[in-house]
């Protein structure tokens, strides 16, 4: 009985022990699970800190709201990065490419993307609707179309990202700064056009206009402290489509003028070089005539000196001899010789001459 009792007695504590033991066992094992879960949680929290940044974006880690890495080095490039879990750290991603590009919005007539792709233009009406057609007014109060495309890169990410709102609160992107650059381009176009004359913008000083627009964009970007650096500013300008023909006629007229002037210049060269050649030949002829004359005189003088003693010994004989010698030569050379003896009665003889000039010979290459 007592055994049984004892047995009975001992039985319940035993079962109790087993129960609490099982409970403790269960608790212990669940604690292990909790521990594992905790460790896993911690690991997960730390693992969740890893994040990747793609090639077309950059990331910034905000620790308690403050960007990490300083103004110049806050941008994290493409690759794997790690941050502390939220709310200590917060990763913000900014879509950003090396070079950003914006185009002005105010100076061009209304087109649709389809038209731009097809390269066609909307039909030109007699006037421009200010609500849809953009244009600028030039210093000489002409209306033209012009457009600027500005390329820039982010120079100071801290300013560009955290200083300009891109529309939505709490979202970070570069829309705000690109908007500001675009408006700077718009202002630069309007202002620069307002101090240039139409012909300078369209033809005479296209480059100067582009440069002035770029300069103004730079000035505004600097003054407004946008944190970007302008790489390039390209400007294209055209006359209004309504006046395309008449503007082209001016261009043609100008080209004609240039052609006339150029032709005149080449004519000038021709005239001057011909005159130069003629002048040179006149001088050369004179030189050779002089040389010939001086040489002839000198040789005459030499001959004279040689002949003088012979002459002085018997002037008459010398003269007769010389004359006879000369006559021999003359009579050989002369074409017609007519000998006309004196009339026996000593009366003068009448001689009729029919002078017939030889017909002029035509000049030709064969007979110059």
């Amino acid at each position, binding site marked *: 009985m007592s055994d049984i009792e004892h047995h009975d007695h001992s039985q319940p504590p035993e079962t109790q022990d087993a129960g609490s033991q099982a409970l403790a066992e269960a608790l212990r094992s669940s604690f292990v699970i909790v521990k594992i879960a905790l460790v896993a949680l911690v690991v997960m929290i730390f693992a969740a800190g890893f994040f990747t940044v793609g090639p077309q974006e950059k990331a910034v880690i905000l620790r308690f709201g403050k960007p990490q890495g300083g103004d110049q080095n806050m941008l994290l490039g493409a690759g794997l990065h790690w941050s502390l879990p939220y709310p200590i750290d917060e990763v913000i991603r900014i879509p950003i490419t090396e070079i950003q590009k914006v185009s002005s919005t105010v100076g061009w007539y209304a087109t649709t993307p389809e038209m731009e792709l097809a390269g066609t233009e909307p039909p030109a009406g007699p006037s421009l609707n200010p609500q849809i057609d953009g244009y600028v007014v030039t210093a000489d109060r002409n209306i033209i179309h012009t457009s600027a495309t500005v390329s820039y890169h982010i120079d100071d990410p801290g300013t560009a990202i955290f200083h300009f709102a891109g529309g939505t609160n709490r979202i970070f992107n570069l829309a705000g700064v690109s908007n500001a650059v675009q408006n700077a381009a*718009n202002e630069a176009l309007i202002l620069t056009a307002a101090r240039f004359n139409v012909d300078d913008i369209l033809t005479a000083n296209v480059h100067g206009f582009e440069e002035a627009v770029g300069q103004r964009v730079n000035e505004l970007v600097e003054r407004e402290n946008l944190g970007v650096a302008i790489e390039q500013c390209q400007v294209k300008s055209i006359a*209004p489509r309504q*006046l395309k023909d008449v503007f082209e006629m001016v261009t043609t007229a100008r080209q004609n003028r240039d052609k006339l002037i150029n032709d005149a210049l080449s004519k000038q060269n021709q005239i001057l070089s011909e005159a130069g050649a003629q002048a040179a030949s006149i001088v050369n002829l004179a030189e050779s005539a002089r040389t010939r004359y001086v040489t002839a005189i000198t040789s005459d003088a030499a001959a*004279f000196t040689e002949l003088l003693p012979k002459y002085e010994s018997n002037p008459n004989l010398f003269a007769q001899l010389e004359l006879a010698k000369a006559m021999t030569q003359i009579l050989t050379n002369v074409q017609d010789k007519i000998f006309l003896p004196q009339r026996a009665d000593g009366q003068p003889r009448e001689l009729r001459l029919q002078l017939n000039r030889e017909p002029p010979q035509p000049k030709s290459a064969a007979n110059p």
Partner: protein
Amino acid sequence: MKKNLITIIIAAGLVVIFALLLFTFQVRQSEVAVLTTFGKPAVNNIEDPNLYFKWPWPIQQVYRFDKRVQNFEDKYSENLTADNTMLLTSVYVGWRISDAKEFFPKFAGGSVEAAQRQLETILRSAKAAVIGKHNLADFVNADPHQLKFEAIESEIENAVQNQLATQNYGISIEFLGIKKLGLPESVTQTVFDRMKSERQVLISKWQYEGEAKATEIKSTAERQAADVIANAQADATRIEGQGVAEAAKTLSVFQQNPELAIFQLQLGALKNSLNQKSTLILDERTPPFSLFQNLPANSK
């Protein structure tokens, strides 16, 4: 004991996190925060990004605002200039919340849109006032000293800035510029007509100028050519003169016997003149035909 420790650590951790959530708040780089105590705003705005302490709601409450520069552009609207030209302008404004504690009670829920509506009203009157004071020549002018474009921009900016400051909206203007400038649609047509006639003037100008310049160039060239030839002829005369002068040096030789000199000269001239293609008529008095008349006699 060990179990308890873990429990305590976990519990403490949870409490800390919970307390942190209740008692702290963060302000980001781009934000400004206003802390109110029982609805009354604190004296200072919280501008610097960091972690801050606060009493939990309902004692203290945090209002955050974006302090970044917002872009605002007004409608393309017409205003009359001082010389009665209707001008269309659109202005862009970079504005931001400069004093959040002043800003948020004035605009429902601190709404940016509400602020921009207010800004547009102020801008409209500022624009009308400033444009009404200027002539069209102040807006477009080839002379940089007369062009007052930038002055007009800063006048509008100052007017808006003053108005904002007087009303104490907690808004400041960072920059302002004219973004679009135009003329009413009907005016564009008359401008086109004027441009067309100006073009035609240019066309005739270029035509005339080309011909005139070309003629000028050619006549100048011809005059220069004539000069060059005249100079050359003068040179030629001078050179011939030099020849004569040089020849004169040999005169002394001939002076020894002028008779012989003249005889020789005449003989030379005779030879030269009676060259080929000449006809010579002679009688017996001309030597050597004098032979026909009388032969020389023997001198005794």
